[in-house]
Each structure stands twice: as C-alpha cells, then as structure tokens.
C-alpha cells in the first residue's frame, strides 16, 4: 500500500521516511475518521442504556446534582426495593407466560400450515395460501376495536388469551411464509422414501419436516418471542386488570407511580431489559434474520 522509496544516502533515507509517514497518515486518515465516526454512533446507540444502568445504581440526591455522573459503588438497593415493593415481578411473569404460550402456538400452527402449503398439494391450495398471506398486510390497528368486542363475546377478557389470540393470529401469516419457504427446499426424495416405508402424513411432518426445519423454526421462535415480549398496542387496549398486565404496559404504570424516584425507575427498567439483552446476545443472528426477512425475501 505504501511504496518503499529507494534510499541511497542517510539524508534521502530520512526524507523518505518522513514522506512515508505522511503518505501513511494520509492513507490512514479516512479509516481513522470512519472508525471514529462508527464508534461515536456506537456510543450514541448504546449510551442511553449504559446511563440507565449507571443510574439504577445511584441515589436520587446523587442523580439530581449530576445526571451525567457515575455510580460511586455497587449499590443494589434500588433493585431490591423495586423487586419487593412494585408489581414488576408479576408483570414479568405475565410477559413470560403470554410470550411462551403465544410462541409455542405460532410455531405449531404455522409449521402445520407451512407443511400443508408446501407438501400436500390440494385443489385451490395456492389460492388459499395467498388468501392467507393477505392477512399479513392488515394492520393490527384496523382490527383493534372490533377485536375488543370479539374477545368480550368469546369471554376471554381477564385471561391471558385476550393477548395470546391476537398475537398468534397476527404472527401466523409471516411465520407460515418463512417456514414454507424453507420446507419447499427440503428434497422430495426424502418424503417419497418415507412414504414407501409406510409413514403417514402426520409422521412425515413430525419425524422429517420438523427436525429438518430446525434453523427456520429457531428464527421464528426467537423473533416471535421477542415481538410478543415487546408488544404494546393490544396489551394496552385489552388488559385492564393490574395482575394480568405484561411488562411494556405494566412498566408505564410503574413509571407513573415512581414518578419522582428516577433511580428506582431505572432499576425497574433494567429488570425489564436484562432478559432481552441476554436473549439478544445469545440469539442475535436469529432475531436479525427474523426481522429482516420481510425486506429481504418480500
């Protein structure tokens, strides 16, 4: 990259070195600038969260005198206080239950439908598939108000199913599309061989399609779990009983109650965020794939 200059005498060698240095600097500077730029964006993307972590370890007087300051010691009082006096543990449990059951149902129903749409050709299967996909384009907002009354008619209010029903339904078209795309690529010979061996359609699904689709099922699982965990609109509109609220909505109540107690609030927000950080760090590839599949495969 940097040309070695031929050197004869001591002085010209030094000159060359000097030039080398500047050439190198010039060569390097765009990279330095770029790296600095990228790094400052990283700080910008991450700092609010780090600040929240710091704040959760401080006390209110400390915070009010210098909001930008660092914690002086590892003080977990705020966490203990929030965990013991606020309903955050309940919200946490609710979020976990709703997200787990929803994700399980999404996985089950969409892989069943994907199997049918990819392997069990039946009259009108393509039309039906596209009709099913059309639901993907209906925004939750348009269903919100009538859904409220549907759920009431189904007597689902004040149960977890008031959220699980809509979460599963709205996740199905996209999940089915993803899984079907994967199942189509599974070689047909495998299934033919299984048929000759006398496997039923159900055991083909259960013994061949599901195990082979593991990578895409992992994407759907992680992505849908995070989506359910973070869902806000339905959770806000449909749940009014405090002991059934999920984290995103429950946290808003908590924020209202601890209004002036910023450090406790920061601890509460950290408690809500830590599981997401862990899941994200472990499964970021699946989360990214799930979230970007719409743009890349649509």
């Amino acid at each position, binding site marked *: 990259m940097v040309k070695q200059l031929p050197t004869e005498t001591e002085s010209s060698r030094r000159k060359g070195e000097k030039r080398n240095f500047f050439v190198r600097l010039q060569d390097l500077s765009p990279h330095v600038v770029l790296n600095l730029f990228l790094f400052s964006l990283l700080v910008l993307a991450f700092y609010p969260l780090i600040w929240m972590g710091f704040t959760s370890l401080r006390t209110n007087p400390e915070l009010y005198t210098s909001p930008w300051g660092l914690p002086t010691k590892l003080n977990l009082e705020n966490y203990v206080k929030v965990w013991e006096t606020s309903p955050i543990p309940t919200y946490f449990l609710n979020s976990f239950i709703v997200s787990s059951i929803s994700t399980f149902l999404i996985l089950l129903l969409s892989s069943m439908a994907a199997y049918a749409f990819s392997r069990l050709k039946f009259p009108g299967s393509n039309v039906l598939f596209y009709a099913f996909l059309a639901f993907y384009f209906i925004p939750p907002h*348009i269903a919100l108000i009538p859904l409220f009354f549907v759920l009431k008619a189904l007597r689902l209010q004040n149960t977890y199913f008031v959220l699980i029903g809509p979460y599963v339904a709205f996740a199905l078209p996209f999940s089915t599309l993803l899984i079907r795309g994967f199942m189509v690529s599974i070689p047909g010979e495998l299934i033919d061989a299984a048929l000759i061996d006398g496997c039923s359609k159900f055991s083909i699904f259960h013994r061949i399609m599901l195990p082979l689709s593991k990578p895409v099922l992992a994407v759907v699982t992680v992505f849908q779990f995070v989506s359910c965990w973070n869902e806000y609109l339905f959770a806000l509109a449909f749940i009014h009983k405090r002991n059934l609220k999920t984290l995103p909505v429950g946290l808003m109540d908590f924020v209202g109650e601890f209004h002036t107690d910023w450090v406790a609030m920061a601890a509460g927000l950290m408690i809500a965020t830590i599981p997401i950080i862990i899941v994200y760090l472990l499964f970021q590839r699946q989360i990214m794939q799930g979230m970007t599949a719409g743009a890349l495969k649509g």
Partner: protein
Amino acid sequence: MVIFFVAPAFIFTVVFIAYPALMSAYYSLYQWRGMSEARTFVGLENWQQLFSDPVILQCIWHNLALVAVAVLIGIPLAFAIALVLARAKVFGRSLYRTAYFFPVVLSVTVVGVLWSWVYNPQYGLLNEGLRAIGLGQLAKPWLGDSKLVMPAVLLVTVWRFTGFYIIVFMAALESIPRDIYDVATLDGTNLWQLGIHVLVPMLREVIIVTIAIAITASIKRFDLIYVMTMGGPVHDSELLATYMYKKAFLSFDMGYASTIAFFLFLLTLALVVIQLQSMRREEAVEF
C-alpha cells in the same frame, strides 16, 4: 387430512383478523359509544367528520414527517453505514452490528422512558449537557414545546430504527458477488462511487421493499409516541394511531375511531401503491 393441518391457522386468522377488519368498516358507518349495544346508523357522517377534522390533518402531517425522516434520513444513513461496515477497514465489525441493532429489540417503554429522561427540562441529559458546556440558554422543555416536540420525537425514531435498516442492507450487500468488488477495486473506484453507481442499482429491489416497509411502519406508528408524549402537548405530536386509540378507549367514540383506523389502512395502501408504482416504472424506463 389437509384440513387438519390448515384449519387451526385459518380459524385463528379469521376470528382475530379477517372478521374484526371487516367489522371495522361496518362500525365506521355507525355512531356508537361502545359501552352499550345502542348503535345509530349515520351513513358516511363519520367520514365527513374525518375530512373536516383539523386534528386529522395535523396527524397526517406528523405521520408524513415520520415517513420523510425514515426515507430521506434513516434509510440513506443506514445504507452508508452498512456499506462502510461491509467494505471498509473496520475493527470489530460484528460488535458494531450488534450495537447498532440493539435499540430495535429494546422494549418500547424502555426507549420512551429513557428518551423522556434525555429530554427532561430540569434534570434531562440534554439540557444538563448544554448547561455543562455553557450553552444553558439553549436548554428547552423539548417534549413540552409545541414546535420542538416533533423534531425531538423524530430523532428518537431515527435512533430506534436505523439499526434495522443497517442490518437489512448489510445482509443484502453480503449477497453481492465478490467479483464486483474486486473489479471496482481494480478500477480504482472508491467506496462512495461504488455505492452510488453500482450497489444502489443492484440492490434496487431490496431498497424499494425497505422503503415500503418504512412507509407502512411510519403510518402505523403508535407505541413510541404514545409512551413519550401521548400525542401532546395538545395534538402537537398526534399521529393517526394515537388519535384513533384515544377516540376509542378514552372517549369511547367507537364509530369515529373505526373510521380513523380504516382511513389509516387506506392511506398506507395508497402510499405504498404509489411508491411501488413510481419506483418500478422508473426501472422500466431505465432498461
């Protein structure tokens, strides 16, 4: 047999999506307080009200501002960052990718509360920072000011969503054959030229779909604004979705709220159709 595999998924989508969506159109023709069964048929009165409601106009402007910021700032910025991350000499590429995407997976409540702290007039990080560097006179009640609230909120949307577009473009750039980069390097093309003249046309499809996603998401946007400002002060950061929500669940005007919901759906549809049509047509002229 087939029915066994398909029926459960269909039952869920019909009960929780198709039927409510249709009912929404039906409700939009009624005046209905939601609490009782008493509905009065009012024809297109709700629609008349919608088109003469000044708040709706405000909402549309705010939603369009979200679209504009996503399409004109978020997406180009993300493309540039993705290009740099994919092609330039960068240390710790995967660390950057992890960090940039992180705001996307955070819970909306956490994002909203965090940023309302940043913007807090008394102890907020922004105002404190300004005071610390001697620019105290620039300290403002960011979310409480009718002129500043939208810019403040728009900045948060850029912060939250740019990571999403970066990941989309990074994945798309990975799909480009290596030879193209090699040829460009031999030609002495720099990264910028390569991006504009070669990669943007090559990734046209992905960019078009990404813009469509940005439009849809911006028109539907609800939670972030609801958490941060609830559409206020007054209606200064009101969006169609927050207005609809308030009409439905705070003033129990279910008929009008359904009309707004339906309008939101039609607006998204119209914008996306226009966008896809115009961008695809350009393509046809090119070749």
